[in-house]
């Protein structure tokens, strides 16, 4: 989780990711950010997020992203 | 609650439709002070019934024959169902419609229309459509009108609104809003009469000048479609026991080719019809091209029309036995009235012309 927050802050230093829960809905993240994030996660956690998981519910908050990573890691 | 709601909706729809209907009436061209040719077709309905002779065709009849003269000189009751650039299928359907109202003894058709086999003449298509409108919009709704519309529609019309723009003319005339004038309000619910039993009077004189050029054609054979409708006319008249008379008005242009004339002579012979080419009888009729035409021989003016009517009236009464109604008390008052209108109109127009000349 720490690691993830670091990545996120790298993308948008101005956002407080521990509180934010509408990253997509508030249009903070655009598709470019998401794709960059996926690449970062792949590099850091060795988890490949498939295209079908790229939906708003999975990316609205740091927590949701973290859950997604863990779920994919499990499978 | 629900009932009240339905009531409100119903009233709204009715009010809206009523308003649109008024707007439509306003937008329809009235054809009163300009292009009176557009108002002629609808004038028939008040004069329907009791006509022994009906003329059907384009300006070759409505500019060249005067029913009032026929009445005055021979007591013949007649009406002209003419409209500008009438096409043969339109004439046929007008004929069909006429039989719903009356059964004349004689039906007169001018054969120049044979030259248009398909809905076209020269000029842009919008022009053709406008002419169709003048013939069609004035007709009352009937199967004849619908058939006539379908036979007349241009390709463009078929692709666009088709029959709907005849059912709801507002679709056709909606962009006339910028031309609305006092006339459109004045004639919203009623129209003046522009003709005398279908005759559109012209008093101007414009003598014939240079000869009209005769341009040879590749093919002089009238089209199949033209013959199809001519055949239908023959049949229709036979059905109703009416005698069909084919004529060619004595006007110089458009050119009436000898080859065309021959076809009509042959057709008349084959179907046992009377065909009169008045072009051959100009001297007999007494037409003087210096005084009797208002546009250099394309149409006759009132003086020419009266001469032609006297000549044709003699044929109608003497050769074809059309009755003299001048002693018929049921008819006389109405026709006396018509004669008066005619005389007044002639006088007014002559005065107006005089004023312009001076």
């Amino acid at each position, binding site marked *: 989780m720490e690691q993830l927050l670091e990545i996120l802050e*790298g993308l948008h230093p*101005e956002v407080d990711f521990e509180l934010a829960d509408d990253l997509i809905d508030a*249009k903070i993240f*655009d*598709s*470019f950010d*998401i*794709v*960059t994030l*996926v*690449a*970062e996660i*792949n*590099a850091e956690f060795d988890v*490949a*997020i*498939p*295209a*079908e998981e*790229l939906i708003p519910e999975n990316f609205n908050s740091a927590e949701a992203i973290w859950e997604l990573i863990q779920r994919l890691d*499990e*499978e | 609650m629900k009932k009240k*709601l339905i009531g*409100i909706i119903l009233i*709204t729809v009715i009010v*809206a439709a009523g*308003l*649109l209907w008024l*707007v439509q009436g306003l937008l329809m061209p009235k054809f009163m002070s300009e292009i009176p040719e557009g108002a002629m077709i609808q004038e028939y309905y008040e004069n329907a019934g009791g006509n022994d002779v009906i003329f059907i065709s384009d300006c070759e009849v409505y500019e060249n024959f005067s029913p009032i003269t026929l009445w005055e000189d021979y007591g013949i009751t007649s009406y002209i169902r003419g409209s500008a650039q009438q096409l043969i299928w339109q004439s046929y359907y007008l004929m069909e419609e006429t039989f719903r109202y009356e059964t004349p003894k004689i039906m007169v058709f001018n054969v120049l229309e044979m030259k248009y086999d398909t809905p076209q003449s020269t000029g842009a298509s*919008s022009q053709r*459509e406008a002419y169709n409108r003048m013939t069609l919009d004035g007709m009352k709704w009937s199967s004849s009108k619908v058939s006539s519309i379908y036979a007349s529609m241009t390709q*463009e*019309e078929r692709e*666009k*609104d*088709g029959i*709907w*723009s005849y059912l*709801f003319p*507002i*679709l*056709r005339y*909606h*962009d006339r*809003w*910028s031309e609305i004038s006092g006339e459109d309000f004045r004639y919203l619910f009623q129209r003046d009469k522009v003709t005398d039993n279908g005759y559109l009077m012209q008093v101007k004189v414009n003598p014939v000048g240079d000869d009209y050029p005769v341009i040879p054609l590749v093919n002089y054979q009238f089209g199949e479609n033209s013959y199809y409708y001519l055949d239908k006319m023959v049949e229709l008249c036979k059905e109703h026991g009416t005698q069909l008379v084919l004529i060619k008005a004595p006007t110089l242009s458009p050119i009436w080719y000898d080859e065309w004339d021959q076809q009509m002579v042959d057709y008349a012979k084959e179907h046992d019809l009377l065909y009169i080419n008045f072009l051959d009888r100009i001297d007999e009729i007494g037409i003087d091209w210096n005084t009797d035409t208002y546009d250099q021989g394309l149409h006759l003016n009132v003086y020419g029309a009266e001469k032609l009517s006297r000549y044709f009236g003699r044929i109608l009464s003497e050769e074809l036995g059309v009755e003299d109604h001048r002693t018929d008390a049921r008819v006389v008052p109405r026709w006396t009235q018509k004669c008066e209108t005619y005389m007044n109109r002639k006088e007014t127009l002559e005065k107006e012309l005089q004023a312009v000349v001076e």
Partner: protein
Amino acid sequence: MSFTSINFLVFFGILIILYYALPKKIQWIVLLVASYAFYLFAGLKYLGFILFTTITTYLVTRYMDGRIKAQNEYLKEHKAELSKEDKKAYKKQVKSRNRLWFILTIVVNFGILFFCKACLVDPLHSMTDSGVISFLSVGLPFGISFYMFQSMGYVIDVYRGKAEAENNFFKVALFVSFFPQLVQGPISKWEQLKESLFAPHPFDRRQVAFGLQRMLWGFFKKLVIADRIAVAIGTLKGTEYTGVSFFLLTVFYAVQIYGDFTGGIDIAIGVGETLGVIMPENFIRPYFSKNIAEYWRRWHISLNEWMKSYIFYPITVSGPMLKLALKTRKSLGKFGMRIPVYIGSLLTWLGTGVWHGFNLHFIVWGLMNCFVIVISEELNPLYEKFHQKYSWSNTRGYNVFQILRMFVLMNLIRASDLFNDVGDYFRRMGSLAWQFNFHVLWDGTLMNLGLNAVDYVILIAGIVLMFLVSFFSRDDVSFRVKLQKIPWMVRYLLIFLLLLAVILFGSYGIGYDASNFIYNQF
């Protein structure tokens, strides 16, 4: 059958009556019959195309869904005995079997679309000898771009396990052929549409009224504005119009395409609403965007969403791309991580360009959009610093400036799809730099474009009205909801006046070459 024909209104009127008069259970069947009737109006010859897509969509989704369900069952039953690796392997096996049919369906269907785009649109541009397959010069099968994307989206969703396949063939057929969206979209997703499409809809006065109002507004935008200004655009495409005249063309075109496309979508969505079917919005006041990227999130949304979910994401997060990103990160650092984004954007915009037409100028158009978006994305950190440093840059005035800048820039890019000859387009773009013929604005040129003073008055009034409606909807509350608050007499009067405006001022009927909806051709 065009939305703006009387035939359509009659068709729609009959449909509404049947739809609400017949039992609620068969409403969706009425829609299916109506959709096919609507489709057949375009010509019998196109029927084969849509049937093929419907049948392949149905079969492949059924097949894949069966596999996925069996797999889930199996995994559930053997939960205890299977190791994580076993599960993974099993899943992989199922997926690869599905993949074969999935890819086959996608390739064949898009192959047809591609072939149609490349060969059927214009026989002159036909890649094959026109003499040999002259029977094919029939034009694009009606609605193919839209129903194809819609059904393939569904196929992909099922493949991904994101949507459940429909058992009823006829329901799939309705989803593919649903008539309001055949003309120019929007492209709906199965999951979004299915609920309202097949559900029974009792007559809801408010919903029907809203639907009709929205249709009327669409007719206004299309008939009064877009079709009226179309003449001038035709004239301005003439070679002698460069410099300021060209700029004028881009503005006129912005008005036309907005009126035409959003108007058409308003009609489509309004038709759906009247029938109780809720379709996704395709526009969110796009001309109020502050940059091109935002514009594309607010213009033709359904297509861009489609492109994002089914092309951009799959490409950018695919295995090879991620590997590439790792590699380039080593050599290029942070910037390297963005490589997949660029490649993905490029391919997506190429796809969007080709979707509009298999022509060089559409491809150029796509690439220009891509280029501007990538640049502005890369410069984003700079912008943010700029905004932090200069507080005036956060004022309303600056926002207006940004909106105007986006408008002008987007107009210039958009104009490329007006010219079949790409060289001609660039020549005119170049003329902007040196030709300052501002005199065209007052020397009477404007009166020679095919529009007269009255036309301009109507256009300007119409544009102001469009602007106001947009402006007052900026809080994302529908204008119709706001209308609802005023006394009913006034509201009815306003609606009647709008109807009258459409009837009187619309460009339709004889004398007007009713230009087809622009997006119809795609």
